[in-house]
């Protein structure tokens, strides 16, 4: 094969890679942020996060709890971006990553202003709600106890005005529903927001 044609094919292939039909193409562009898969505190909405983040990994390096992991090429264009797996190691809101981000992908915000997601209780699985035991683990572990999670007739209730979505409750919850699901999960609602609202 001639050098020029080889290079042409190579360039064409690389260009069309994200346009692949079906699940392969969709997966390359799809955001990895789903239930219990969260961006670090202060992250800009997913709409611009992959564009703003330069994948320098400094947030991963400073995280003292090793909560922040790094995605690889299997996440498509999101390769190299930080992700927190809430049920494995949650975010303890030390805000160190926010201080080191050089691009503003993680905005410098206060601890209580953090909105990584919102904790949602699955009332069909929560032990306190179905009445098997008097479990209040999430309430005990919540860094904003009585604000973000309070007890209503001994059952936990979330207050969305105070919940930071740190995932400490998810990590502590003793009820495992599926591989990465607990009876209380973090839904990254705010990541889907538009930048200009």
């Amino acid at each position, binding site marked *: 094969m001639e050098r020029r044609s080889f290079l042409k094919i190579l360039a064409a292939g690389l260009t069309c890679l994200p346009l692949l039909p079906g699940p392969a193409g969709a997966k390359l562009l799809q955001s990895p942020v789903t239930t219990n898969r969260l961006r670090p505190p202060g992250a800009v909405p997913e709409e611009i996060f992959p564009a703003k983040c330069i*994948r*320098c*990994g400094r947030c991963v*390096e400073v995280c003292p709890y090793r909560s922040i992991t*790094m995605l690889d090429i*299997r996440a498509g*264009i999101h390769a190299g971006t930080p992700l927190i797996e809430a049920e494995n190691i949650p975010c303890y809101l030390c805000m160190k990553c926010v201080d080191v981000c050089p691009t503003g992908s993680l905005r410098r915000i206060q601890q209580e202003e953090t909105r990584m997601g919102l904790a949602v209780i699955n009332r069909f699985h929560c032990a306190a709600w179905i009445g098997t035991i008097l479990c209040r683990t999430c309430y005990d572990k919540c860094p904003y106890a009585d604000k973000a999670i309070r007890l209503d007739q001994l059952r936990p209730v979330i207050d969305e005005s105070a919940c930071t979505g740190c995932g400490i409750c998810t990590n502590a919850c003793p009820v495992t529903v599926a591989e990465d699901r607990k009876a209380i999960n973090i839904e990254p609602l705010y990541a889907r927001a538009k930048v200009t609202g």
Partner: protein
Amino acid sequence: MKTAETTLGAKKTDGQHLPGRQKNHYGRLRLTVLTGAFLLIFINPVLNYYWHINFIQGWYQSFALGNLWFVSPLEGLESLLLTKSLYLPSLIGMVVPVLIALSLGRVFCSWLCPVSFILEIFDRLRKLISQKKYLKNTLLITKKALWFTLIAELVLSMIFGAPFFVFLSPPGLVGREIMMLAFFHTVALEGVILLLILALELFTRRFYCRTFCPLGALLAFIGKKRRLQVHVDPTSCTNCGKCEKVCPMGLLPNVGEGTSAYCWNCGECLDSCRHDALHFCWEEKGVCPGKTNR
């Protein structure tokens, strides 16, 4: 090493050093700097992971020494272009690298880049094994392809709204792989790109660096009118062709290509020159005020 090459020389006098000639050792100095720069990003994740010493963070995509932050110009530029907004800390982080490129050219590539370090070691190993001093470049692409890569990269990134280079950039990949290894005890899949670059090195020296590195292209573009240039003294040059053979970028320093945008000021040609005809010079207003008065 130097005396063994005499048979390759075009002239009889090649073997002897001219009286009063100072021998250059840029090669040795450059390897030391490259090794230091590589060790820095190699040791740092380990310090960070096991002892929580995070005074130094990151690698050559964004590097922090305490509160002194550097941001790689291409990555920073892409972030600004794609989000269509300015962010001062990232702009300020880009100032020092851009100033270095403005005055010294692509020195990051030849003196600091971890890919350059790996390829330099690879080069030396190849020399040890094959006994051949110079690699014959078999795969050649016009040097202008470098600008094409830069433009294509920026345009493609802006179309798709996601920066491609930031997660495929080989200088960043080396740092990321080392960090992944230290922190998560795995390696990221995209590391195969590094193997590909290593394989290409068997055909042409610095094939990736000279034609396909967008970061190198941007630094070369910024350094087009740089101050530090390799100048040739036509009165002492004998056109022996040694500098052409040693130039990792495939340039011809003896006809003045050391002042072109493609030169990355590594100093290999200065080391190779036996007639003291090549010099680094700090150019002012288009003239070199050094000893070679043109």
